[in-house]
Structure formats: structure tokens, C-alpha cells
């Protein structure tokens, strides 16, 4: 029964591990792997001994974990949004809001950058024009080339883009909560806030934790494009996450083997995050997923 699934897992999850072999060779794009020099653990040694590499890896690990952590902390937002949405009585208004908030999910990060550039660029950005035209400032603020609060602004873009989409499953889960519970609560005199706190939220929590665990896998999977389009010299120190660093080392820096070795670090980060989420699940619900 499960063999097709196992085959899929093998093909898509275990076969790619073959790629790790590149970290042991001095690989150059285009050449046959086995015609390049075998360098053994050189790239791994470099990760831990070369001063420049070590500082960079520590920096990008900090960025990766920091931004991932912020992502996890804010992963309750879609749930809250779904609950608030369900409290809107006017159906047409609710649908409109939901549609508007869901649309950004379908915009690629490249386009998001164009929109951000149109909004925030120093010369012609909408925001700076408003500030200047109203005499609030003489010179525009260069929002996109600022290293300040990059984690938060990146989080902001992420939430703007993902909130509506993330809420969809919660909205589905809401309909699954037994209406009799609400009726019983109403008879017992519970208000809307009480009902939300004692019925809706506990009803959504299992969904929340499943999604949380899945999103942790995705955080590292899809973690590059956004930072890639927004990176520049001024914010690079704080925006460069592990995925982007691997890309910058391998594709921009022509050092595939070292990049592969660093890429393996992702497994370490993923496992750390996974245990963290599992721990959260354990202390809040008393049951763990693993």
C-alpha cells in the first residue's frame, strides 16, 4: 500500500542526498565530477577553521535562526486573522477582505520588490513623495537601502504576502467546530470573547501545530527568494540567511563544493527548529508530534 509513497520519498528525498558528494570534490561547473580533484574534508575544515568563513557562517546562522524564530512567533497571526474574519457578520464585506488579503500570495517576490521599490524608493516612492510634498521631510528616506530593522521589515513583507493564504485552512477548520458547543456556551451565558477563548482557539490549536511543523520545513525551503531580491550592500549583514549565503557562495562565488558543505548545515538548523516546535507543542498541549 505504502510503497508508491516510499518510492516517492526515496526518489525525491534520498536521491538528492547524492548531491552531498560535491562537497568532497573541487567541483567546477560543466566538468565531470570525477574528473575534478577529490579534496576530502577540506571544505568542512574550512567552515570551522577559516576565520572569515566562521564569522560569516555564525552571522548567517544568527540571521536564519532569528528570522525563522520571528516567523514562528508570528505564525499565530493567520489564526487570529481567521478568527477575526469569522466574527464579521456582513458576508460580502468578509469575502472582500479575505480576497484582498489572499491576493498577495500569488505575487512573486520579484514583483513584490518592484512594488516595494515603487512605494519606498527615495526619488519617486509613494511614501517619500507624501512625506516631501507635505513638508514633513526635505529629503526622502532610503528605506530599501537601510540596514536597520531588516528582520522586522522582512517579516512585514512575509506577513503581508502570506497572511490571507495562511488563514484559509483555519477558516476551513473553523467550520468543523461543533456548533452545539457554541449554543451550549451561549446558554451558559458566555459572550463572544469567552466563546472565542474557550471554544474557537482550542478547536484550532491542533491545526495550528500541524501547520507550524509544516511551516518549519517550508521556512528553510522557501527562505531564499525574498531575501535574495531585497539584498543590497547596506542590509546584507542582517539579511543574508543560510540559503542565500549558500547561493552567494556557490553561484556568485564559483565555490560549489564549499557551498554544498555549508548547505548541509541546513539540516542542523532544521532539526533544531523541529525540536523547538515539538517542545512548544508539548508544553502547550501536553502532546508531541514526534
Amino acid at each position, binding site marked *: 500500500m505504502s510503497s508508491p509513497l516510499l518510492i516517492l*520519498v526515496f526518489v525525491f528525498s534520498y536521491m538528492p*542526498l547524492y548531491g552531498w558528494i560535491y562537497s568532497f570534490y*573541487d567541483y567546477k561547473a560543466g*566538468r565531470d565530477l570525477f574528473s575534478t580533484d577529490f579534496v576530502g574534508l577540506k571544505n568542512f575544515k574550512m567552515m570551522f577553521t577559516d576565520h572569515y568563513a566562521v564569522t560569516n557562517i555564525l552571522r548567517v546562522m544568527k540571521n536564519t535562526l532569528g528570522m525563522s524564530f520571528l516567523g514562528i512567533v508570528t505564525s499565530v497571526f493567520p489564526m487570529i486573522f481567521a478568527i477575526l474574519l469569522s466574527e464579521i457578520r456582513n458576508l460580502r464585506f468578509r469575502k472582500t477582505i479575505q480576497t484582498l488579503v489572499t491576493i498577495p500570495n500569488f505575487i512573486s517576490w520579484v514583483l513584490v520588490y518592484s512594488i516595494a521599490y515603487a512605494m519606498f524608493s527615495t*526619488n519617486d516612492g509613494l511614501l517619500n513623495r507624501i512625506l516631501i510634498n507635505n513638508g514633513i521631510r526635505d529629503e526622502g528616506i532610503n528605506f530599501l537601502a537601510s540596514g536597520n530593522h531588516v528582520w522586522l521589515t522582512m517579516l512585514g513583507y512575509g506577513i503581508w504576502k502570506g497572511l490571507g493564504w495562511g488563514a484559509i485552512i483555519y477558516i476551513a477548520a473553523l467550520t468543523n467546530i461543533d456548533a452545539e458547543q457554541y449554543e451550549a456556551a451561549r446558554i451558559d451565558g458566555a459572550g463572544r470573547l469567552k466563546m472565542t477563548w474557550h471554544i474557537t482557539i482550542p478547536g484550532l490549536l491542533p491545526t495550528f501545530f500541524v501547520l507550524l511543523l509544516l511551516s518549519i520545513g517550508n521556512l528553510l525551503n522557501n527562505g531564499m527568494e525574498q531575501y535574495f531580491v531585497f539584498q*543590497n*550592500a547596506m542590509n546584507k549583514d542582517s539579511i543574508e540567511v543560510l540559503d542565500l549565503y*549558500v547561493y552567494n557562495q556557490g553561484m556568485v562565488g*564559483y565555490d*560549489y563544493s564549499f557551498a554544498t558543505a555549508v548547505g548541509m548545515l541546513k539540516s542542523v538548523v532544521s532539526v533544531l527548529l523541529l525540536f523547538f516546535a515539538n517542545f512548544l507543542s508539548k508544553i502547550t498541549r501536553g502532546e508531541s508530534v514526534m
Partner: protein
Amino acid sequence: MIRRKVLAFLLAGVMLTTLAACSGNAPNNANSSGSPNAGTASTNSSKDNVELTVLSLPGNESGVATGWWAEEVKKATGVTLNFLPTGDQGEQKLQAMMASGSLPDIVVFKDYKQVQNAVDANMLAAYDDYKELVPNLYANAATSLKYYADNLSGGKGKSYGVGTKIKTDPETKGDSGPFIRYDLYKKVGAPPVNTLDDLLAVLKKMQDAEPTNADGQKVYGLSIWKDWDQSYMTMGMFAAPYMGSKIPDEKSLVEIHNVGGESKVESILSDDSAYMNFLHFLYQANQMGLLDPDSITQRFDDAVAKTTAGRVLFALDGWGTSDFSTVERQNQGIGFMPLPLGYTRTRTALQPVGVPWTMSVSASSKNIEKAMEFVNWNYSFDAARTTENGPKGVTWDIDANGKPALTQKYFDIQQHPDDVFADGKTYAKGASPLNALAFWGSSINPEDGAAVGNVFWDKSPYAPADTKLRLDWQADYGAYDMNSYLTKNADKTQTETVATYPTLSDDMVVLSSRIGDVVKTNSWKMVLAKNDAEYNELKDKMISDADKIGINDFVKWYTDEYKKAEDLAAEYSE
């Protein structure tokens, strides 16, 4: 049980996320040579139209080429060219294609290292194997082919590429940057510009004289971009020749100074290097509000659009300046003209081998013969003239004396640059997106003894008088244009000793990139620094970090190899 499955699923997810390089298929081209059936292949195929995919790293446009140039290509070779986007990710795209084991039909590389890598990976077709298909190439670019066969074939002795912008005759006419908004420069008194500080002062005055353009948008002294940055801020490469040195390519962290026929290689980070001076210039420009603050976030296209809209006062090269300096504006005395700086100016040597921008045909192309036909066309003098001056018989033609001459139509277009010229596009928009002209404009076609570019041709009798702007400039500098000015003032110029550069080794590419990571990031930070203290702090950090990673090793390696390249260049320059 369920727990196990979830665990397996999650673990699988974790593993998927790791950088998985695909093993790729080895290019099936080991014996692409053989003897192609040239005769039948070309006669049959030239009738039906074939679409070829092109990756041109120096190019800036993508999509299927349309406009007059594309029409000419189709007419001559039956080829439609589909350009892959390159922009600021061209190098990475090339890397990905290399790793996947096949390249698009035609590739224009940016440096010798990229060519060498592709040759080592057996990904290019040798021109030698298709000699019958490329007679023009062998007739007109033989020296370049020999250079590639001798030095860039991995010992195979075949030409897998050919240089572009082959320059066999010195240029004595034409304009070259830097360009300044000449009307405003004159308006503020046209003070001589001997130092970068002079330049800043004059740009400031110009900006004050015209703070906004006609649409009320803010005007900046200069507007730059980071699209082409590799190991340092590439704008420095364009600025260096105006300050008497030369940075060979985007990956080499050295400057070459030519003094009295002797060349000297030094680090771009050394004291008083053109690069460091340029960074300080940009920093001061930013402090004075002259530098477009969007420089670090915008793209090349954005900056060009700003120049075209009259929002930029100074440009290192012609990007967007001619779109602003229309004949109509020039006749009112408005527009960009070149600015002779007080520095010793470095001019490029003759380049019989061409520049490292290299045109190659992919070994995995399904239409190698067609691609060869295109290359053959591109390396004919007629095609080079067409690419440079427009379609033969329309904008130029061979006159009664057997010499090329511009037609009335050419001058009409200059008067009406916005009119649709061919294929739904204007003349300017229909030009070649390849950005890899086979011959430099000054190169002479041996058949008629005239050059490729029309600036070197005899003036047509019906050519309109020079614009007011140019007449002003000519009166001020006593020369027809920038190159004739430099030729007249030979004491202000220095010609580089060689026109060929070392091919970086694999180690040097990686080293350059590791140093470059530090250099380009800190360079931009220095430019945008808040005050001198921050500027100096960043500068010290950049230099000490670059030292630690090993910039001196790079400079030493390059110095040794450059000496060898000098000797080599002598062999190919007769």
C-alpha cells in the same frame, strides 16, 4: 506508527532542503567534430527560418529580437534570435547552464575564464570543424581565432571562440565618455575640471542651476547601479581610464598603470588608486546630495530612464545620454557632451585579438550549422556596418566612389528619432541586443579601405550642419570631437601596452570572489557613509579584511601573469 510516519515525512523534508546539485547529463558532444555535411546542410536550411537561443552576457535585453536588426539577420541568414535574460544575474545563469551540461545555441562570454571553463567541459563547438561555413570569420578575424586556438583551447589547438570589438586601426574620431550636461556646464561658467573636487563643485553648481527637470522630478549629479558588480563596484572599472589606469575585468582586483610605455600592476585598494579615489568621489557626491540615493537599489534600466528624462547631469559612458541629447535638443544647445578631465587618460591599445567578450557556438546546439551561419554573417564587414549604422541600402550605401556613405534617410531618422523605423520599432529600439560588435568602429574593411563606423566615413554632401551644441563644444576645445581632441593632445593620453589579459585560474576566481564579497559590500557602504569617521572606519575594515583573505596573493599572481600576457600580446600584434 503515525509518529514514525510524521517523523519520516519531516526528515524527508529536511533532506530535500539541502543543496542538491543535480548530477546532470554529460554533454553528448565529445565527437561533435567529425566532418559536418556543410554543403547540403546550409543550402537546405537557409530557406526555412530557425530560432536560435542566445545568452549574451554583455547584453541587456531579452526576448525574441525584433526591429530592423532582427529583420536584417533573418534576411541574411534565416535566423531568429531569442535572447535569454541576463541583467544582473547573467554570470549565475551561465554557471547554472554549465552545471546542467548544455549551453544555448550562441553564447557571448564576458571573460576568458568563462570561455576556458566551457572549453574544458567540452561544451563549445570548434570553428575549425566548420571552416566551410565560416569563411568570413577566417578572412576577417584570423588573428583572434589563432589566439583562441593557441591559448584557450585546453591544448586542443582549435578555436572554440572568437573575440569581439576587434580593433586593427587606431580611432581618431568619435566621442567617448565621461559625458556632462554641456548646456548647464556652460551656464555655470564651464570651469576647467582638473581634479575630482573640481568635478564635484561644478556638478553642485549645475544641480543648483537646475534642481528639477521639466516634469518637476529631482535632478541628480550622477545616478549609478550595482547590476554589473562582481568582485568590486564595477562603476570603478568605467571611471579608471579617465584617471589614467585600467581595471582589466570585473573579477580582477588590480589596476594597471601605464607610464612611459611601462606597465605596473597594483591592487585596486592601494593608496591613491583610481578605484579608491572614485569611491571617495562618490562618497563626497553623496554627502553633497549629488548622488542619486536610489543608486544602490535601482536597476540599470531605471538609471538609464532617469538619464533619458534629463534627471542626471554626468555619466561615465553613453548610457541613456544620446536618448536625451536628441538632435532637436542639441540644436537648442541642450544635451550631453564629453568632458575632457585634467587627468592622464588611458586609451586602449589596438586589439587584433579583440576584447575578452567572446562569441561561441554551443556544441549541444541542434542547429550548429545555422549558428555558424549567423557567426559568419556577423563577422562580415557588411554585417558589422549594418549593425553599427543601420540596414545597407536604407541608412547607408556604397556610393559612386565605392565608399560607404550615409543616406538622407539616416539624417531624417536623427531628426525624428521617435518615428517607427521597421518592424514596429524605432531605429534606436530596433538595434542589436547582442552588444558584441565583431569589429571596433575604426577597423578598416580592406575591400574598400573605409572603416566600419560612420564617424570615420567622409561626410555626405547633404549631411546637415553640426548641431549648435557640438559647434559650441568644438569652439571650446578646438577639436571636432573627443577622440580628435585626445589625438591632438597626446600628452594627456597614455595608451596601454597590451590588449590581452591573463586568464584567471580556478583558485584565483574563488579568491577574487571571496575578497570581492568584502570589497563590493564595503565599497557601497563607504559611498553611503554618514561622515568621514564612518567612511574611514569602513575603509580600514575593507582593506584589512581583504588583506586577511589574501588580496596580496591575488595581486602577486596577476602581476606575474600580466608580464606573460604582455609577451604573448606582442606575438599577436605583429
